[in-house]
């Protein structure tokens, strides 16, 4: 089964920007997230992963009848922000929860584990 591990953080845009600078300057091949990603890749479970820009930079397209309204900001203002995700393929929820538990997240962050739906007609396009 495919699972998305969604990483939520209470970091403000400023805190996140500082952490991002440090993340780009870190020595290649080192650091807890590098180790985690390598471990998932070596285990053959990793399908993809992305780190997102802060929700403060989000742009939303709102649908109302025929109108498409562009607004500055996220869908919903919340204290915790979706800042990244891993997409993995493992046998069951227990295995997905194990990978979530192994994430080197900070205190106060939350990883939401969601299974992907299967057998939907539209998915056949993906091949």
């Amino acid at each position, binding site marked *: 089964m495919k699972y998305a591990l969604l990483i939520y953080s209470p970091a403000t845009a400023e805190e996140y920007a500082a952490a991002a600078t440090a993340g780009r300057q870190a020595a290649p091949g080192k650091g807890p997230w590098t180790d985690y990603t390598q471990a998932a890749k070596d285990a053959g479970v990793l399908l993809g992963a992305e780190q997102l820009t802060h929700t403060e930079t989000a742009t939303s397209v709102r649908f109302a009848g025929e109108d498409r309204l562009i607004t500055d900001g996220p869908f919903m203002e919340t204290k915790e922000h979706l800042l990244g995700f891993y997409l993995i393929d493992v*046998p*069951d929820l*227990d295995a997905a*929860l194990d990978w979530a538990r192994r994430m080197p997240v900070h205190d106060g962050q939350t990883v939401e584990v969601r*299974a992907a*739906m299967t057998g939907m007609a539209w998915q056949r396009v993906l091949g």
Partner: protein
Amino acid sequence: MAAGPGVTGLERAFREEWGAVVATLARRFGDLQAAEDAAAEAFAAAAATWPETGVPPNPGGWLTVTAWRKAIDAHRAAGRAAAVDPQLLSDVTAAEEAEMPDLLGDDRLGLIFACCHPALALEVRIALTLRYVAGLTTKEIAAAFLVPEPTLAQRLVRAKRKIRESGIHFEVPAAARLTERLAGVRAVVYLVFNEGFAATGADGLIRGELCEEAIWLARLLHTLLPADAETAGLLALLLLHHSRAAARTDSAGKPVPLAEQDRSRWNAALIAEGTSVLDEALARRSPGTYQLQAAIAALHAAAPSFDDTDWPQIALLYGSLARLDPSPVVAVNRSVAVGMADGPLAGLAVLEPVLASGALEGYSPLHAAHAALLEKAGYPERARGAWAKAAQTSAVPALREELFRRHENS
């Protein structure tokens, strides 16, 4: 399993088999709803035919085969791709009812682990376990937990959907997770028991049966995992606690404290079974909190009277328990035992840090223990204040009355 008035032999056989049939189908189809629907159809078919044809020689096999066929029919009618091993499918379909359970084995452990999965909310784990493992009806569970039946039914529907869609499998967890997950299963069974044990007064009649259900579950768990010492410890603890059930309330339904209970009304058979299960568990030399609590309960059960109890040994056991589980609730119980073993001042010393921390300010037994120790130590004024606090914080009306009485008399 509780066989209350009105529960016929047929109904009891049904409930004994229900969990096994649901487990077998849930594991093979990966879908608790499909398993429940098919099991319900098979049980309805049995209810319609057995009174005339008589109960078949292997009722479990009959129910499993019938439910299996209903499930296959429903599966095909829904046009779903066969998630079931086709080989097993034909084997099972061809099987005679007598061979069916042997062919499939016992899947109940996997069902229990799925129902008690930590990804489900605690009250949902309890409801799932009682519905699918113990075979209680939605109506019975709703009554026992004082929630409207539609609310409980809705909770079960959502839980079944989560199990199916989130990939909770009906399997025994891998070795690395087994200890933690098994502790979670035991906690669910213990909570079911405590729900029944804490119930007094008007609700007591319905809710008291939860104790029997919890013992049935603990017994099943012990049968499925005979080598696990803490699971045996849990069963022993529940049997020993339940042995006092008849003496715990008076004829008016008011709770009777341990010191004043009529020990001739304790159930000797439950005490004997609990003690023997505990002895076997202790022989495995793998101690844990349930075994320690059971050992304490066994010492109470063996004592001719409250005063003539092996308090020094009980105080020692509470000391070991406090090291494994340093919770303030354990400290409160320990203070009572130490007070009996080494005098009220020693008991008060154990209670001191709990009172100072304020962690259990709203916990009535803390103030009751404090009051009793103060009384014995010769501080009647301070005892009066503690009795009053105990009465104010008690959530059980009958107990509150009793505590107020002590407050008046102190």
